[in-house]
């Protein structure tokens, strides 16, 4: 029923050109080359000239290769049978399971009507104080981890995924090292989470064009589950590989680059994926945690830069720790006013003090004399890094807030912190001997500690 074309007039990069009639923009085709059959997608029409992007790359395609148009756009099968399975970027099985063909849904679908979104309000607890206190993660948030190559970003991603209370985890891997992919799969399996996970994995060895499909395919499936009332967490790593795939195709198509070779629509391309994160009115939600590696550890590089303008904050991972500066959860206000009365005050004050500590460190490194205040800050900063920032710390938000007060009280006088008098009265831990205003247990613990110190 679909006509087959045999004359490929141009092959450049991963783009081929044939002359054909009645072809639709965005339509899929099957291309047969000497290395096998690949899908391809129509990306430009000019009278009867049809340009197609070949998913498996153009290597092995000859001028008399076969092109058969399929009459529909890129789609994926959506069924419960996806759970526990691993696929590649074009939706073909990567594990030894069967290919799925029922209930095909289009990928890259339209945007959610803003009128059908609700204000996100559920905190996702991670047990990581740098997130829970300082930059709370919220259901339906889109948030990348900014990191230089070599940082343990995938470990952090996996840890949050396992600790978060979600129904379904979808991993979209782009340019992953094969080992990293296996590590992800094994971690999910060991923690009993594989059966509620779906993996779409493009590895560094796979064709570039497939890398481009990973976010769309992952998010299309996520969207369907969310419409069925599921809370879905989508992990996308590494979005810089995705952007590089876009760059490659833009250059092949001779588009004028806007910045360091990236196409002018990089922002819109990234946004149309990240904006799939949503809390539906009357259905489920999609939360997106991504990784954006920063080439040269440079946050002004076009990929992290454009990402930062799109996502609802970012976590900076540096030297294996989440940096308080630059890290940001834009949705934290939605949730941190409802956790505990002191949450916001602890958050703001501890960071301001940590900023002062950094200034003091600078002064110290220049050999200046340390004032009494500087010395206080030095003690504070070290404790903050060791007891709050270290990623091995795994405690509840409430314990982390208590710990925050204790660190501050050990280092400063109440008025030196700038916390409002009302909160000081309520939360400032009692010094040895006086009655505490916290819960009796903690106050007792405090006293014992103080007593120990006194000895």
């Amino acid at each position: 029923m679909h006509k087959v074309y045999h004359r490929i007039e141009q092959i450049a990069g991963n783009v081929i050109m044939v002359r054909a009639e009645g072809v639709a923009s965005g339509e899929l085709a099957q291309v047969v080359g000497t290395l096998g059959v690949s899908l391809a997608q129509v990306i430009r029409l000019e009278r009867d000239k049809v340009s197609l992007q070949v998913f498996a790359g153009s290597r092995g395609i000859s001028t008399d290769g076969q092109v058969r148009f399929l009459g529909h756009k890129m789609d994926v099968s959506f069924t419960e049978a996806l759970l526990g399975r691993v696929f590649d970027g074009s939706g073909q099985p990567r594990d030894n399971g069967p290919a799925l063909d029922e209930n095909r849904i289009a990928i890259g679908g339209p945007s959610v009507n803003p009128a059908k979104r609700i204000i996100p309000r559920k905190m996702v607890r991670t047990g990581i104080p740098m997130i829970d206190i300082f930059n709370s993660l919220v259901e339906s948030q889109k948030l990348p981890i900014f990191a230089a190559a070599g940082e343990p970003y995938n470990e952090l991603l996996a840890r949050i995924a396992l600790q978060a209370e979600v129904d379904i985890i979808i991993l979209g891997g782009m340019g992953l090292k094969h080992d990293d992919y296996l590590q992800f799969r094994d971690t999910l399996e060991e923690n009993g989470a594989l059966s509620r996970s779906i993996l779409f994995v493009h590895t560094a060895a796979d064709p570039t064009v497939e890398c481009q499909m990973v976010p769309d395919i992952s998010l299309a499936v996520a969207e369907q589950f969310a419409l069925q009332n599921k809370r879905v967490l989508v992990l996308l790593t590494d979005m810089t590989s995705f952007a590089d795939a876009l760059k490659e195709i833009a250059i092949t198509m001779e588009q004028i680059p806007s910045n360091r070779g990236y196409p002018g629509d990089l922002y819109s391309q990234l946004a149309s994926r990240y904006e799939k994160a949503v809390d539906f009115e009357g259905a489920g939600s999609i939360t997106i945690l991504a990784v954006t590696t920063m080439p040269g550890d440079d946050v002004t590089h076009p990929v992290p830069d454009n990402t930062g303008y799109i996502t609802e904050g970012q976590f900076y991972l540096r030297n294996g720790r989440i940096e308080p500066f630059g890290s940001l959860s834009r949705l934290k206000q939605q949730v941190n006013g409802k956790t505990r009365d002191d949450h916001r005050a602890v958050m703001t004050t501890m960071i301001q003090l940590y900023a002062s500590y950094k200034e003091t460190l600078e002064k110290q490194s220049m050999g200046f004399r340390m004032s009494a205040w500087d010395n206080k800050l030095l003690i504070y900063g070290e404790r903050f890094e060791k007891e709050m920032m270290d990623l091995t710390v795994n405690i509840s938000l409430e314990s982390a807030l208590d710990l925050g007060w204790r660190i501050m009280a050990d280092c400063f006088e109440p008025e030196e912190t700038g916390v409002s008098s009302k909160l000081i009265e309520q939360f400032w831990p009692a010094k040895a001997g006086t009655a505490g205003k916290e819960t009796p247990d903690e106050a007792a613990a405090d006293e014992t500690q103080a007593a120990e110190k006194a000895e």
Partner: protein
Amino acid sequence: MSENVGTIVGVSGNLVTVHFDKPVTQGEVGFVRTGEIALKAEVIRIRSDNAELQVFEDTTGVKVGDPVDFTDNLLTVELGPGLLAQVYDGLQNPLPELAEKTGFFLQRGMYLKALDREKQWDYTPVARQGDEVTAGDTLGTVPEGIFAHRIMVPFGLTGSYTVAETTEAGSYTVDQMVAKLRDEQGTITEVTMVQTWPVKVPIKAYAERLRPTEPLVTKVRIIDTFFPVARGGVYCIPGPFGAGKTVLQQITSKHADVDIVVLTACGERAGEVVETLREFPELTDPRTGKSLMERTLIICNTSSMPVAAREASVYTGVTICEYYRQMGLNVLLLADSTSRWAQALREMSGRLEEIPGEEAFPAYLESVIAAFYERGGVVKLRDGGLGSVTIGGTVSPAGGNFDEPVTQATLKVVGAFHGLNRERSDARRYPALHPLDSWSKYPGVVDTTQVAEARSVLHRGNEVDQMMKVVGEEGTSIEDFVLYLKSEYLDASYLQQDSFHDIDGATHAERQQYVFAKVNDILAAKVFFPDKDSARKWFLQLTSVTKDWNRVAMDTEEFKQLEQRLDSMLAEVSEHA
């Protein structure tokens, strides 16, 4: 209707090339018919018998040979009662109504009327039979929320008209005739409550444009006191991501002392609009006691919505502002972010293969930005009343570097620059306007000599701070050190403001005058300390008391007590003590 149908000959992203036979106008709207649907598009270039159109929707499925219906109309908006409290997309489709029709997702090719066709409005005629009128004159009014919405002679009518007939006072829908006008040739034009206007053409049915001189109070201290905005002025907020551009616009939209706020969410996050959309109906406007939504209108073309409609969205917004200005109202347009619109221009320019300028932006970027901001202004209407459109646009510079084309082009045409700064937002010094780099040419709410003194403290304090980084605290004299502490005090207790606090978050003009005078006294006072540590300690405490002071209402006992506390603290360290 004369049919003018063209044929698609090329598709590249959302740019289509169309072959035509009958005349086609630059800027004309066309509909690309593909299968069952028709996609709205706009002519952006014509070359011999081919027109290039940017399609305001995803073009997947469009084929060579598909027909295109040219409409002979430019891109327009509908103007009439019922615009307020609406939430539109960039092409003025009401989003809640779209949701009723298409559910969770936006469906392409679905266009709805902007104004409610069923609703009845209580019309009171103003013009009498026989009156001479011209475009923009009031024919009658209908109550729209808290305003008397003027039904005006359509702006597109040129020359002078005589009112031939007016309807009785009563209830009418927007499509019913309210007046008949006769021109000099005797031709009759029927007028309803709705008129359409091309978005890219400014509405100029007023007597004259005036210089913006009245401050527009935003209740943000650092703005009103240091970098004020004027009614009818234009200003910009550039800043790297996360520096607080959107939050600043959100709080401005809540507190600004204007009649109407039009929010244009242009190519940024949907979630941010949802906050406004869901919260504003619940919030009361302290000026009117009514819901804040009644004075608000949202144009929402967020980042995953069609790119080409981003440009339309800012023009749709400003046209609606100009319409309400004609009623003698003060209107504020907040656009977040103008860079996304500029990027949309860049995408299209790239597809057209135009010769690129800096960072691949088109060469005409500067003139497009200038023409947009020129649409702000205070005007004197022909009835002697005043109206204003104030425009505040955020700019999202790549890499946070202000040396880029959009920021630079914008800085050339605005009257105030609120530069947000990464170091300040990292240090949680919100609102993160840079107090030394920002500027404004508009008059503020506070005595200018006091502001000049405070600014000098900031400058000198900053110099001491820079010097201390080289010579250390020990190499700094106590006088200089105190100067530095004073500038830090001014920063922490006045420039910084807790935007999410009921009272601190919105400081009205009288309070700014009162508090700023007190802060100024403190800055001017000669204070003495035995050593630097005690100076620092005293200032920290003073800051903490002042912050408490900022958090209590002005008419309370507590306010007085805290003020006395400040006075007595000051007395303790002053030379008289």
